[in-house]
């Protein structure tokens, strides 16, 4: 059913994850992410979809006692990004993330977008200016903020802040972008803007998005994964998952009988 011709950008191989204290949050997940496609993760709260997403940029490393098993392999270089010898900072340089709640830094709009470049040691003004403009355009925010780039980012609306966070994540030219319920704190218009933006962004990069909103998954994604209790229950192209799911559980969740 899956188009085998689409190249794989990254894939989880037998991925398990244990939180500090032993909670077995992911159980042997095998799942490819296709290049320049949007993959949506759906499932009831606590099913492990955010946990899965946060494995991709090693966010779990920030908290002591967490443990990964299995692999996440990036293509084309075949790097297992969960390998101990791989620096999580290197991983985060290639895979960026947009969070559930907009989390701009207490800095100007410009400095927020330039942040990723600055921490990489880039201080060339001309280069930063160009990159910031490009990222703000890429996040469909340029027209609204071009004349006030030195304003504090907190002065933007919630939807604008989230687009700023997308611009920030975009500025470093990542290969994969992770979205953790990116619209759950936004109103419907801001949500529509973000969804439209995601559809444009997939031309440049690969997207993995966690969503609670079934319609959103159906609208924006090319592939959908349904997770339950830390296991990948069903994975396939979005049309198939939503119209002809093979498993009863998936159907129940999608139709709202459960969850």
């Amino acid at each position: 059913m899956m188009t085998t011709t689409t190249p794989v950008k990254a894939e989880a191989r037998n991925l398990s994850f244990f939180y500090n204290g032993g909670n077995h949050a992911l159980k042997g997940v095998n799942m490819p992410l296709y290049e320049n496609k949007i993959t949506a993760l759906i499932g009831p709260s606590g099913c492990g979809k955010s946990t899965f997403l946060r494995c991709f940029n090693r966010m779990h490393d920030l908290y002591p006692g967490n443990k990964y098993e299995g692999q996440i392999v990036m293509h084309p270089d075949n790097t297992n990004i969960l390998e101990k010898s791989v620096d999580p900072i290197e991983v985060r340089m290639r895979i960026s993330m947009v969070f559930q709640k907009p989390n701009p830094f207490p800095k100007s709009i410009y400095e927020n977008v330039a942040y990723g470049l600055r921490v990489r040691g880039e201080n060339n003004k001309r280069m930063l200016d160009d990159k910031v403009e490009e990222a703000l355009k890429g996040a469909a925010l340029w027209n609204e903020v071009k004349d006030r780039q030195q304003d504090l980012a907190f002065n933007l609306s919630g939807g604008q802040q989230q687009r700023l966070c997308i611009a920030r994540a975009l500025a470093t030219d990542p290969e994969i972008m992770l979205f953790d319920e990116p619209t759950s704190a936004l109103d419907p218009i801001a949500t529509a803007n973000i969804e439209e933006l995601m559809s444009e962004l997939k031309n440049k990069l690969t997207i993995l998005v966690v969503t609670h909103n079934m319609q959103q998954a159906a609208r924006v994604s090319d592939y959908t994964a349904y997770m339950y209790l830390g296991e990948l229950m069903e994975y396939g192209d979005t049309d198939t998952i939503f119209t002809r799911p093979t498993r009863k559980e998936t159907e129940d969740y999608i139709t709202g009988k459960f969850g």
Partner: protein
Amino acid sequence: MLAALSAVFTTVAIVGILLYESYGFFEHVALKDFLTDTVWTPLFENPRYGILPLVSGTLTITGVALMIAIPIGTISAIYLSEFASHKVRETVKPILELLEGVPTIVFGYFALLFITPLLQKIFPGLPTFNMLSPGIVVGIMIIPYIASVSEDAMRAVPMSMREGSYAMGATRFQTAIRVVTPAAISGIVAAYILGISRAIGETMVVAIAAGQQPNLTFNPMESAATITAYIVQVAMGDLPHGSIGYQSIFAAGLVLMLMTLTLNLIGHMTRKKFSERY
């Protein structure tokens, strides 16, 4: 309600007495002399009432204290909040708070009997009573305040902001300096202001170790008196109630109060300016 009222009443009463007694003082001494004369000798045959030497002593000691306390306090706060393990933090914080409880007279003799001789080895010409030694000790004394209040402010920065920074590939150090510190700046500034107020109001250490000679200088290597040291010196003597010398301590107290009031206002304004919205 009654308790709250009693606090308000006490404050009003203190300000009222300060103003009333100072009024008596300023009936004898012109405000211009008070603010511009460079000699403070209210208890001499020919008394002169220039507050400037006391203000310079206060500011010099506060300056020395801040040069010690702000860097060390801030770095300690960043370390405790962003780098220390849970165990280290839970051990160090109570010790810091314990340090806040050491009686200031202990610090005073620590300055006079330990720090001053030590400094005299480095600066042979240093007089026994000088402003450097109590300045350093007041600085040590306010480190725990600055560290503890700044650390609280940094801990209050939401984890989501740190995660945002890490997700951009930042290191721990970059996250601490470029994101957490600016996010907590209002609390950190509040900690500094608290520390400054505390340094300005500090009495015992300076009364013991700085000498009690009013001296218009900003050189920490000299001896001098501060506003508080003067007040304690006079209050311990046997001046008749209602005399001008007696009233002079209220005038000095009024200046002290105005200084800390100004600081609190600055602190309040800074807080508003940097008010964080996460």
